[in-house]
């Protein structure tokens, strides 16, 4: 295992991590502000990817595709919030789980009905394709590097939004005391719709960005959704900072575990059983990480009273 390969894998882990952050940020905001567990967040990711693939196919422009992904996911999020989600805020978590599970069924089959069962492909634009040379002679795909950049930029933007803007003040106040915020004249149901649409837009953006390196297909959202759950459980539900740290931890653990564990087992096993044992264990690694964090801190790393 060379150092260059290791650095490449660290970058891959970072890339997975920041994309998970885009998903986890929306989930954790929606939970922190509205107290809602939303299984259909993965469907919004899928909608973003499909909207991007459709627009990129029609116009050939990657930027337009990203705009379409943001708009489609935000619109879908706002509609779902207005029609279904707002009836669930004062229900128990069981009702929320089931209603959003029902939304997944509707979104997945609806998408299959419109786009068919075959995966779509979203290609990387020419100006972002190909490798770049990093210091130390490392060749790394420019597109993946761009993803890391976009993810970090969104993270910074989100921190500024929450800590510096009027909307951010309202969001933080809404987390602390919903009645008081309403009494002070903030339209709380509009705030909820905006927060939900914001989370949806982030998920849609992640879907479109990841859709170019994987295929765009029905059911693509749920594996990412579950990883995002692991992220916010590790980070602490409701905490944006926790979501970022958790996402990077999960991204790095998953990527490096998949590479390093088989190598580790080769030290004392034959090559083929080392790679099968190693990869089987690597697939469980993030869940073991989660179990360890919870054993030590049941509310997650940055979780307050959730």
């Amino acid at each position: 295992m060379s150092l260059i390969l290791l650095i490449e894998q660290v970058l891959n882990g970072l890339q997975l991590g920041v994309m998970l952050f885009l998903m986890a940020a929306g989930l954790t905001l929606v939970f922190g502000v509205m107290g809602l567990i939303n299984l259909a967040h993965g469907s919004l990711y899928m909608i973003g990817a499909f909207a991007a693939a459709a627009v990129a196919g029609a116009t050939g422009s990657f930027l337009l595709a990203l705009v379409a992904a943001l708009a489609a996911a935000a619109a879908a999020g706002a509609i779902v919030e207005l029609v279904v989600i707002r009836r669930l805020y004062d229900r128990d978590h069981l009702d929320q789980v089931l209603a959003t599970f029902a939304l997944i069924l509707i979104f997945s089959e609806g998408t299959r009905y419109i786009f068919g069962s075959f995966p779509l492909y979203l290609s990387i634009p020419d100006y972002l394709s190909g490798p770049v040379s990093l210091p130390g002679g490392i060749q790394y795909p420019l597109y993946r590097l761009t993803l890391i950049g976009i993810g970090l930029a969104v993270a910074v933007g989100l921190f500024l939004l929450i800590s510096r803007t009027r909307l951010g003040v309202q969001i933080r106040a809404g987390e602390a005391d919903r009645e008081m915020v309403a009494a002070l004249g903030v339209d709380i149901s509009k705030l909820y719709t905006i927060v939900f649409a914001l989370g949806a837009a982030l998920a849609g953006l992640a879907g479109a960005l990841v859709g170019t390196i994987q295929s765009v297909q029905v059911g693509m959202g749920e594996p990412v959704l579950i990883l995002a759950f692991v992220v916010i459980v590790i980070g602490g539900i409701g905490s944006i900072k926790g979501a970022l740290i958790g996402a990077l931890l999960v991204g790095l653990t998953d990527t490096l575990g998949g590479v390093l564990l088989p190598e580790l087992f080769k030290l004392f096993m034959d090559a083929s059983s080392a790679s099968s044992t190693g990869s089987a264990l690597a697939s469980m690694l993030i869940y073991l990480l989660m179990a360890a964090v919870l054993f030590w801190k049941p509310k997650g790393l940055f979780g307050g009273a959730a």
Partner: protein
Amino acid sequence: MMRERHLNLILLAGLLAIPVWAWITDEPFTITLATRVAILALAGVGLNIALGLGGLVSLGHAAFFGIGGYAMGILASHAQNYDPIFTTPFLFEGTKSMPVIWLTAIVMGGIAALLIGLISLRTSGVYFIMITLAFGQMFYFFSISWPAYGGEDGLSIWVRNGFPGLNTLDPIQFFALCFVLLLLALGLHWTLARSGFGLALNAARQSEARVEAAGLTPFRLRLVAFVISGMVTALAGALFADLNRFVSPTMFAWQMSGEIMVFIILGGVARLCGPVAGAALFITLEHWLGGVSDYWHVFLGALLLLVVLFARGGLIGALVKKEPAHD
């Protein structure tokens, strides 16, 4: 309005009468559908012990369902290949005997539930939902990436396992086995709900502090309920694998956890026969709507949404109107 007890009897009698009628008129496919209902209802009864009695919203019960399935798959595949599972420290061979397979499934499901419960039950509310979901996924990915037992392709068993004195290849006899196990599990739920343990568990759901003040440990009560729940669902998994003579990682998939939960909701939460009504409705819808449209999940989703938003008692709640007995 109907009494819940009468409705339960009608439901179970119906679940028995339909396959018997199908047996008389020689329609084995209907018997298989009824067997599916009985097995999935059994999985739901398992979850209902944690969810209905204990208020534990586990979205990871596919883990136990899959463990039961793989207990059957691994034991039977070793037996059909005449290849012992391990020889040291003692000889451990596969088996084609259902009682042994069931016992193994129940024990393995119980051990897994104990380990998952020890960690997950330290948390509550939405954390618990997400953690059980994540543990379910852990088993799913492990079963895909572990190549010894088929990996992603799963394991096929050529001949259904045997039960002493019965011909399990005959659909009606296999149905009878599953139906009896379902009745036993319902009896277990009924007994638990009325026992001191069940009352304490229900009290812990409503007011944790009071139960502690009475000198009981809510964590321990919940852990016991979770383990029993995992055992019953694992038994259902073993039967489900035997019904299909096939086990694959899809039994561990999180959609499976969701579906088991859907059975309970469609039927009615905390109702003894809620999972039976729910599984019957689910399979009927799957069969009919699946024939009408390839996209029947849209209708299922819409129905589920309507039940959650507007008819919270589910099927049994709509017919009985009275609140569940212990609320």
